[in-house]
């Protein structure tokens, strides 16, 4: 699945943040010198299951220049003796909305809001600016701004970035919070914004969520949203047919000018994976129905909090689960009421036990066991230290530490189309690593000693 996905993605989207950007970006900001480093005498977990017990990692110009048990250290690098420490690939939080605008944000003005009501996707043709005047530029409703790029809109505060790094998170997948087609998935680094470009990848996926439009427009309900999503995929598939016919010179073929349908063509024709936000069992079923009907290959299900209850549906559609570690309360899990009424033994809902909590937190473990590809995420919560704490709890609920590391490094890297840049400690990749005291990245009470993002020490 992972390899297939990488091949399926247009590689042109990948934006390598070369070391040079450090000097050219944000000329107004204070220059921060970046050093080259050699981490010596350190235990290296280069990738899940690939361990060098004692070795050296060399960073040059923000990238990994060498890694191994015996590698030469170039002159002029800063040597850090990290005996007793372990270096891991920086964690990738596969989905966060931190730093992204809310798709339900108010529109700039009432006039533009009216204009936005027009058109299938909600992008208005604009309104004349007075009698005979020019047309105002079109305004897209954020709920259906399908060509918005999350990576372009990522504007976290420095405090939010610091918080992410504090949990060893060096890369984030960017997923909007809400909307219907709020835009495209991206990836970004968590370094400081002061002198580096965070955006790492645009167009990693097309986000789909069961939201509604504002102001009494269609769709205004969850049931309407499903129909709208189906129709939008069909419209984009039609757009693709006409575009193709137009290019072939077929008489009568004229593609529409609707930016919404045009934006959805890659997702509707499987040139880009669709990332559906779905947390409970029934929502996942709905995604499976849509993916099957629209012949979407390898969709991504973001949230998947009740994924363990919908394993056949996830497998049927060949989905990757981006599992949010923001677990539902066990008493709110779908079907809990069956234990209280009808199928129970006690006449009342049994009190919650550790097993109930374990079931909810064991979601990722159950999915991995069932063979569903899993990436871990803080979606719906805060990234950073809380994310790492929750990975520890997911491990306590049955996820193996290696699977956890995989689900927070190589799997999300592949899913986001950034394997060439991050996910493992390999020569040529960005120097995104986390160093802990001891052997275990996820153990309770293990302080994070250092975090490097693109070779910069934090």
């Amino acid at each position, binding site marked *: 699945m992972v390899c297939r996905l990488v091949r399926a993605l247009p590689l042109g989207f990948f934006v390598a943040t070369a070391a040079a950007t450090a000097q050219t970006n944000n000329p107004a900001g204070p220059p921060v010198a970046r050093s080259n480093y050699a981490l010596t005498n350190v235990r290296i977990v280069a990738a899940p299951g690939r361990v060098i017990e004692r070795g050296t990692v060399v960073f040059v110009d923000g990238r990994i220049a060498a890694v191994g048990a015996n590698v030469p250290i170039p002159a002029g690098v800063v040597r850090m003796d990290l005996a007793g420490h372990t270096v891991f690939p920086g964690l990738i939080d596969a989905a966060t909305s931190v730093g992204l605008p809310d798709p339900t944000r108010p529109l700039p003005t009432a006039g533009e809001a009216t204009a936005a009501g027009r058109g299938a996707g909600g992008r208005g043709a604009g309104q004349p600016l007075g009698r005979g005047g020019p047309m105002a530029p079109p305004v897209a409703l954020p709920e259906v701004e399908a060509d918005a790029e999350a990576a372009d809109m990522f504007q976290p505060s420095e405090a939010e970035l610091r918080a992410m790094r504090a949990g060893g998170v060096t890369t984030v997948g960017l997923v909007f919070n809400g909307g219907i087609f709020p835009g495209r998935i991206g990836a970004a680094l968590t370094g400081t914004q002061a002198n580096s470009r965070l955006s790492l990848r645009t167009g990693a996926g097309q986000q789909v969520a*069961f939201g509604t*439009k504002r102001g*009494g*427009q*269609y*769709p*205004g*309900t*969850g*049931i*309407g*949203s*499903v*129909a709208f999503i*189906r*129709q939008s995929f*069909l*419209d984009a598939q*039609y757009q693709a*047919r*006409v575009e193709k*016919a137009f290019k*072939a010179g*077929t008489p*009568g*073929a004229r593609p529409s000018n609707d930016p919404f349908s045009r934006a959805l063509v890659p997702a509707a024709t499987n040139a880009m994976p669709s990332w559906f936000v779905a947390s409970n*069992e*029934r929502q996942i*079923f*709905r995604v499976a129905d849509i993916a099957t009907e629209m012949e979407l290959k390898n969709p991504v299900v973001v949230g998947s909090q009740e994924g363990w209850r919908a394993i056949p549906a996830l497998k049927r559609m060949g989905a990757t689960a981006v599992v949010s570690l923001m677990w539902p309360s066990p008493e709110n899990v*779908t*079907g*809990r*009421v*069956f*234990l*209280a*009424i*009808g*199928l*129970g*033994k*006690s*006449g*009342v*809902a049994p009190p919650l036990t550790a097993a109930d909590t374990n079931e909810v937190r064991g979601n990722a473990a159950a999915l991995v066991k069932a063979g569903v590809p899993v990436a871990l995420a803080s979606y719906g919560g805060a990234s950073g230290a809380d994310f790492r704490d929750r990975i520890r709890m997911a491990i306590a609920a049955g996820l193996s530490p290696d699977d956890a590391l995989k689900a927070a490094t190589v799997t999300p890297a592949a899913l986001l189309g950034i394997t060439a840049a991050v996910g493992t400690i390999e020569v040529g990749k960005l120097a995104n690593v986390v160093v802990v005291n001891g052997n275990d990245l996820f153990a309770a009470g293990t302080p994070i000693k250092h975090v490097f993002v693109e070779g910069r020490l934090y």
Partner: protein
Amino acid sequence: MRLIIRHTRIAAVTLAAGVLAMPGARLGAQDVAIRNATIITIANGDISNGNIVVRGGKITAVGANAAIPAGIRVIDGTGKFVMPGIIDAHSHAALEGGINEGSESVTPEVRVQVKNDDAVIYRALAGGVTAALQLHGSANTIGGQGNVVKMRWGATADDMLFKGAFRIVKFALGENVTRASSTAPADERRFPMTRMGVEFTVQYWFNKAKEYQKEWDDYRAAVKANPNAIMPRRDLRLEALSDIVKGDLKVHSHSYRADEILMLIRVAEENGFKVHTFQHVLEGYKVADEMARHGAMASTFAENWAYKVEAWDAIPFNMALMAQRGVVVSVNSDSDERIRRLYAEAGIGVRYGNMTVNEALKMITLNPARQLGVDKMVGTLEVGKDGDIAVFSAHPFSPNAMVEYTLVDGKVLFDRSEASTLRKQAATTPGGNQ
């Protein structure tokens, strides 16, 4: 009926606090027999001291001397009455994601969503209900597609769907569609605002559907000669309307007044489709002949006189009068509370209109089964049909009647004896009324 639903929700919640768990009724193949009961077959009269056997989810034997295989669960039916599971042809129970996509008046592409863990399903079982038609609300001229579900408490949402049932779309006429009760200023309200506008809306959209159908027919003809012909845009809304004309999607139309019923029959006939069932249809008794001639069925309330302006001419004789003129009549709940006592509603047809007991019981069994397209599978107690059965403590029209057991596909999903014990336990357990 939304107001009524709101009022009665309080009562329903109170009941839920009382009726609690039922051990041992886990899902899974289960064979069961009920012995020595009065069996109301609906199809072939009543059988005194009869037995009924369900194996693999289907009725395998029913009769005075039906043999009960050894080793299967046997429910003693002595003194009890067994009837087919009750079918509610109009329900808004156990839905989520909204009931009305009210942003536009014609949205047949929208489909209701089952909320499989809504406790109302268990309450419906407690009233002997084993299947229902889940419908949209009535805000829209053409609201969307409903679901026929079985009350498989404990199953997933997908598994609750009644396989083989009709695809059904809900139309609506009258006050709800015209937003008569809306307090918004007239210039902010959505078209249509009058019954004339409703007629125009139906006509307008079926004209569009015709054009759409022609576009596809032309394409299918053209592509034979020209493989480069471009496949037209699929429009789920117009596709649904085309399906109505083809007969693949059955129209159930919310209606009250005689004039609007006649209007829809006329517009349907002009556009080549059939109104499969009129819902509510409180003035159906005035136009029963026209409905029968069109081939429309009727799903109505037992009474509900004057609960709104357009219900002013409602009479309790409506069911019987329509049935006398050859209309297939069911009585429905439209309510999360009334769904538990549909058998009492059906009995009103005996008191007002002199329906026979069997004809009255048909209104909650075989007739709604026909309206939902499931009469080959449920609605009577006959060999080969699904093991969807309600067992009553007395004749279902007796004021003392209570549902003792409800079976769906042969699985006992409600058992009052266990529910009663557990209700007592719950009452004495701290926090037990949660």
